[in-house]
Every structure is written in C-alpha cells, then in structure tokens.
C-alpha cells in the first residue's frame, strides 16, 4: 500500500495547489474531450458522487447504518419529474424542492419511528423503506404511470437559454456538486458536524456532554437525504426519462459499495469510490456482459487490499471490550 501513502504524502501540505489543479482540469474538461460518451460518463460519476457523499453523511458521520439510499433518490427524482411534466415547474425551483421533499419523507416516515433502533435493525428498516417506496411508485399508476415510467421531462433553462447539450449539463452539475461538497465540508466542521461525529463515536458520552442525540440524528437524516433528493432531481432532468427500475435495491447497494470502497467516514472517500468503480466498469463497456462482474470483483479486491476503504476514515475512540483492537492501535502508534 506504499503507493497510497506515497501519494498521500505528496499531496499533503500542497492541498491548495492540488485543489486548484483539479478544478482547472474539471473546468477545461469538456473543451479537451470531444467524445459525448465520455462526458456522459463523467456526469454519471458526478451524480454518484452526490449520492455517495450524502450517504456518507448518514453512515460515516452520523453513526447510523442506512442501506436504502435508492429510496430517497427515487422520491427526489419522481417529485421533479411529476411537477415538471404536469405543472411545468422550472428546474431551479424543483432542485431544492425535491431535496426538501426527500428530506421530509425520510424524516417523518423513517426518522421519527425508526431512529430509536440501533445498528443492523435500523439498516433493515431503511432497506424495507426503500423497497416499499419503489413498490408504491410501481403500483400507484395514476400518479407515476407505474411500470411505464415518466418520459419527456422538459429541458431545464438557464437565463432563458434551454440546456440541451451534454457540456451544458456538465457545467451545471459540476457547479452543484462543488457547492454541495463545500456546504457539506462547512457543516461537518461546524458545531452540528462535531455533534454528529461525537454521536458516532459514543452516543452515551455525547448525550452526557449535552448533545441532543435524537434531534441531531434527525437533522443528520434530513441533511443527507436532502442531497439525495437533489441528485434525483438532477438525474430526472438529465436522463429525461425515469422509471421505478432505476431505483431498485441493487442501486442502493452500489451506492453503499461506492461509499465503503472509497472510505466511509472520510470526506474524500465518497468522491474516490464512485470515480474508481464507475471508471473501471466504463472501461469495460465494450464487453457489456462482463461489466458487472468487474464491478463486483473490484469491490472484493479493494476490500481485501484495504478493508478501511481507499481513504479509510479513522475512529477516534477505543472500545474497552475489544482487546485485539486496542493492541492493534497501540502497535500502530509505536510504529510512528
């Protein structure tokens, strides 16, 4: 793993330089690359970066374990699709609205009843919740057209100009993703983010220090699912056709895989995870049936090489019951 450490050391201390270089590359990207296919792939990666980052807020920072992220994505996408095709609402209003819708649905229907469950039991509820949303969408034909899906979502407009080319979408989505990452970074470094991390580390200790656990967990859920809903809205306008098949459990599992492969609980992990996994699978697009085999194998290989993910986050507290873990941590410290 020395190559990772080498890169880490190279980047460390020059983060502004790296960030600037990255931004310039991303801005110039559509000018340099003429292939429409590659631009579409990159837009896809950007959408998954949104989803993975928002899931990372719940799983990596909130200390909860959610599997059913596809459900909130579905709520956002269908809110945007229905309101824009039936009432002609604009993309820019729907962007926060579908996010808020996903957030409210998750907070009221999932958060209030299910937050008192811990760990795996919470994970199971989110899984069931995601699938229930998909099945309702599939069966409520008068609202969602069921298995036929919603086609013909209009092009968004930007100061009167209709956005219809891939490079225009690319710049808008890039802008939203950068804005989202900035907001997430600021929130995580604020009082709220610190409270989430303290809940993740130890709930009892956090509440003893005056953190209202339930309220902060609800806020965490709302904040994370808000961005999942925004990603759904973007997906609906970009793909221009949505159906319930896009939001199966497998979708939620791939988002989870991207988070964990990238490194749960780190800020950069959910950016690296989708990038790695989607680039790998798109390289093998030519042999379509092997694509998913490579996706599965890549998850297994990364987990075997780096069980903490590529940019694995570090837990700050040590549980006294697990002697093995304490020994490992102590030995790591001695090495340094």
């Amino acid at each position, binding site marked *: 793993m020395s190559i990772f450490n080498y890169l880490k050391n190279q980047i460390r201390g020059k983060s502004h330089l790296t960030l600037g270089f990255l931004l310039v590359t991303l801005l110039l990207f559509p000018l340099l690359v003429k292939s429409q296919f590659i631009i579409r792939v990159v837009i896809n990666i950007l959408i998954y970066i949104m989803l993975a980052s928002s899931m990372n807020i719940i799983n990596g920072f909130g200390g909860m374990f959610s599997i059913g992220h596809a459900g909130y994505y579905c709520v956002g996408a269908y809110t945007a699709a229905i309101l824009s095709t039936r009432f002609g609402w604009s993309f820019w209003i729907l962007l926060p609205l579908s996010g808020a819708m996903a957030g409210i649905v998750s907070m009221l229907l999932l958060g209030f009843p299910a937050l008192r469950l811990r760990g795996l039991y919470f994970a199971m509820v989110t899984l069931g919740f995601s699938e229930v949303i998909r099945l309702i969408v599939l069966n409520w034909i008068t609202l969602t057209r069921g298995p036929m899906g919603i086609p013909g979502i209009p092009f968004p407009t930007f100061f009167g100009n209709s956005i219809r080319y891939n490079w225009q979408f690319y710049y808008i989505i890039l802008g939203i993703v950068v804005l989202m990452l900035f907001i997430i970074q600021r929130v995580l470094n604020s009082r709220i983010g610190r409270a989430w991390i303290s809940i993740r580390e130890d709930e009892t200790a956090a509440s003893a220090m005056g953190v209202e656990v339930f309220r902060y967990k609800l806020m965490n859920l709302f904040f994370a699912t808000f961005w999942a809903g925004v990603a759904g809205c973007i997906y609906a306008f970009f793909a221009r056709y949505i159906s319930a098949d896009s939001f199966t459990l497998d979708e939620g599992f791939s988002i989870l895989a991207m988070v964990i492969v990238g490194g749960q609980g780190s800020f950069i992990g959910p950016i690296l995870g989708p990038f790695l996994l989607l680039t790998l699978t798109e390289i093998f697009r030519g042999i379509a*049936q092997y694509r998913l085999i490579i*996706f599965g194998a890549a998850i297994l290989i990364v987990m075997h090489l780096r069980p903490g993910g590529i940019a694995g986050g570090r837990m700050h507290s040590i549980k006294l019951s*697990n002697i093995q873990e304490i020994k490992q941590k102590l030995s790591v410290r001695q090495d340094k």
Partner: protein
Amino acid sequence: MFYLQQIINGIAQGSIYALTAIGYAIILGIVNIPSFVHGDVMMIGAFAGYYSVLLFPDNLLLVFIIVFAATWVLGIIVDMVCYRRFRNSPRQVMLICTVGFSIFLKSSSQVIFGTRQKLIPNILGNNFFALGEIRITFVQIFIVSVVIFTVFLLQLLLYRTKIGLSVRAVSMHKSASALVGINVNQAMRFGNCLGCALGGIAGILLGVYYNAVHPLMGGNAAMKAFIAVIFGGINIPGAALGGLLLGIFENMGVSFFGSGYRDIVGYVILIIVLLIKPSGLLGRKESEIRI
C-alpha cells in the same frame, strides 16, 4: 373455500421460505450481519439441481445430494472471500463483501448460464388431490415433505453432534467459545456452509415450485428469507414460523389487493415488526442474536 385454498398455497410457499430462512438464521447468527449473497447461493443451488435433474432424471435423492454438495462448496468459498479475513474489522466490510460477491456471482452466472429462464422438467406431473373445491398438488406435498425431512435432519445435526454444539456455541459468543476450546474458525465455516447448503436445497425447491430457474431468481427469495427471519426471530423455530406465516400472509394479500402488491406485504410486515417488536415473534432480547 377460496381462502382455504390460499392458505394451502401459502403453506407450500411458506415452507420454502421457512427452509431458506432457517439457513439464513444460522448464517446471521454466526456472522452477525445480513448476508446478501444468500440469494445467489440459492440460485446456484437451483442451477446445480437443474443440470443434475437433466443428468439423472430418475434419482431425486441423488439430485438433492448434488445440490447440497455444490452449495456446501460454494459456502466454503463465501467464507473465504467474505468473512474469514474481516472477523475483527467493522461489520460493514463483511456486508459490502457479500454485496460485491453477490453482484459477481449474479453477473457471471448470467454469462455462463445465459439470461433466459430454463424450464425444469416436470417429474412429478400435474396430479393433485381434490377435496371438494380445494386442490393440493403433488408438487406442494413433495415440497412440504422435503422441507420437514431436511429440518428433522438439521435438528439431529445441531442438537446431537459435537460440531452442531460448537456451531450453536459460536453463534452465542465467539470469545467465550474459543476459551472453552472450540475451533471458532472451523465452526464458523461449518455453520456458514450448512446455511448455504440449506439455501441451495430451498433454491431447487423454488425452481420446482415455479417450474423454472434463471440467474436473477435469488434476490427476491433471499429478501423473503430475510424478512421471515426478522418476523419470526433470529433462531431456528422463529425462522420456520416466520417463513410459514409470511407465505400465508403473502398469498392472502395477493387475493385481497392483487398480485402487484405481493412483495409489498413482506416489506410492510418487516417495518411493522421492527418498529413494534424488533426481536421478532419468538426472539429473545434485541441485543442477542443467536440460533
């Protein structure tokens, strides 16, 4: 009469769910995470059964032995790939490994076996008993009797042998069972293989019930097993009860609301049970997962 018929169909389907759920409960007790690879183990078992039925159409016992052996070997691979190295890691690592392995198995079997569904030759025929308006097909009787027989053998294995005892001990407490001299790794592998092999048999039964096998059949069936385990409680009697009840409820739900809502019944049960009694019908406390 109509509802009685639905209950009988539900019992036949529910007994398959029950067998899957028992295997799932053993694995859940051993590794403490929901294994998402179980559906694909079932699918591989169903395909092994399909090919061995083509090879040996007369000898059903041999078919079941082949299925059992094939999924047992697959269980060893699952243990090697997903569980063994990550015993002391955070548990989402194991979970995501099962997800990755499931994607891998599903898509490679789509490449190997083809995406079309394969029809299992109808060995038992379409005969049925008729009691008034109620029909009980031979297939249903066959399935229920296979499930009862397998569960009987499983009870003998878990409660009358030494390795069964160590599997039960490991699923209660790993460090404590290591202290009294149980080979934890071996017992975990054995339990996982046992769960997978039961899943394989359930897979071929599912294939016989629907008369077809295809590479994507596992996912839904494994979710049903998962719901059944949560519904009944994470232990063997709980899983069996949960599976049977889930089968009956589903068939009743279909007759009330229509077939589009078949899967939603299970998930609604899952959410309600988790909110009201997270340990399940026959479960013990929330914190203890044991078989």
